[in-house]
């Protein structure tokens, strides 16, 4: 065929031209944009239900295997669990106490907004970015369920990330451990403001974040809690991000950097909540 002959004759030129085109496209689409393009939405709509089903099956298989392993150590577990129950009962008492204290402190710190009014919807995680480079995942709720770009995604253990793009019935979420994620945070104890960035391209594929631009005189130390500040961006104030595990100062920097272990377990993420910043919006 003439077309194929043409293709083969000019293959190098075609590959170079296509490369430049793709590069331009990649650079163009790397600019922030909210809505997905028509094609993106369409492909997503086709693959999405299948993906959801398979993810469910895979979760089930994974769970079953774990269960079988569990049964082997049943006896052992029983004894351990009995002890554990006693421990936990004690813990529970302490927790109740702490809960009350926590509520008082929250009022004091003035970030106890009624969270329930902020919740837009619950969603299931349906798939993860296949590559090892970015930490983006999809959820099964979208524009039709009231999800919008920049809404916060949380679990009961803290902040997960932010809605990046919205399709009709699905959305992409960029997690806080992604290298391209940055959110404004505050150290709960010392009230120091900083920017929390993902670490996942930093070479530390260990699911940590780092908080930069902390003032040099900041007294932030290991064990401090970091929450969202509500400044500047679209996240509600006071969502738990994680705990400081290390404070460092790089020689050339005029600020301190804190390494943060997020409260959320990013390896096992199944259900999330989507929340908006303000009720009146």
């Amino acid at each position, binding site marked *: 065929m003439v077309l194929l002959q043409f293709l083969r004759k000019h293959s190098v030129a075609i590959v170079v031209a296509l490369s430049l085109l793709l590069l331009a496209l990649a650079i163009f689409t790397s600019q922030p944009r909210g809505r997905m393009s028509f094609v993106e939405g369409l492909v997503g709509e086709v693959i999405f239900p299948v993906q959801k089903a398979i993810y469910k099956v895979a979760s089930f298989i994974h769970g079953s295997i774990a269960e079988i392993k569990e049964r082997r150590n049943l006896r052992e577990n029983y004894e351990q669990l009995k002890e554990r129950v006693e421990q936990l009962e004690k813990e529970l008492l302490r927790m109740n106490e702490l809960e009350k204290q926590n509520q008082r402190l929250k009022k004091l710190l003035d970030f106890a907004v009624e969270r329930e009014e902020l919740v837009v919807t619950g969603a299931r995680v349906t798939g993860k970015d296949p590559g090892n480079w*970015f930490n983006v995942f999809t959820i099964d709720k979208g524009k039709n369920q009231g999800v919008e770009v920049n809404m916060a995604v949380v679990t009961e253990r803290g902040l997960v990330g932010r809605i990046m793009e919205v399709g009709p019935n699905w959305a992409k979420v960029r997690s806080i451990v992604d290298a391209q994620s940055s959110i404004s945070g505050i150290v709960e104890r010392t009230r120091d403001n900083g920017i929390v960035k993902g670490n996942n391209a930093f070479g530390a594929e260990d699911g940590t974040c780092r908080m930069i631009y902390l003032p040099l005189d900041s007294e932030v130390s290991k064990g401090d809690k970091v929450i969202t500040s509500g400044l500047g961006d679209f996240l509600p104030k006071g969502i738990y991000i994680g705990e400081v595990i290390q404070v460092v100062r790089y020689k050339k920097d005029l600020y301190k950097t804190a390494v943060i272990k997020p409260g959320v377990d990013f390896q096992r993420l199944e259900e999330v909540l989507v929340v908006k910043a303000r009720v009146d919006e």
Partner: protein
Amino acid sequence: MKVWIIAGILLGNLIIQSSLFPFIEVYGIRPDSLMVLVISFALMAGNPTSAVIGLCGGLLQDILFGQNIGFYALQYMLVGYLVGLVYGKVFTGKVLVPVFFVGIATVFRGLFAFLWMYFAGVDVSLYWLFLRVILPEMIYTVIITPVIHYYMDKLYRHKFMNRRWHFD
């Protein structure tokens, strides 16, 4: 017919990669099965088949999960094209051949991603990136290469695929 089979394989691969692979990841590293597919087809069919497969597979991945449309497509197309150039010049029966090319291509892809991040202003160190991401990904991908390549080779020799569909 063959085009549809390959399209099906790419689609199935994407679905498996995004839904099953999270369960087999080790320290956050997953094998890159699309890379194995592209290399397999490059060695079995050559250009332009492999370049097109790389382009389409990468584009699918871009559209569903990528943040930059064209990012993966460019990488896999180049890999498909460059490896496709050796089609017919090497003996592909030995399993070491695809393993070799998969290894090289994974490093190439890693460097590409590094350059992209570097120019996007992400704070990265190539040294750590190589140790923590590129090398483990290479090892993991190389491990699954023989399995995927074996089945692709078998499929390609199957009577469905016998007639070359890309030229004549």
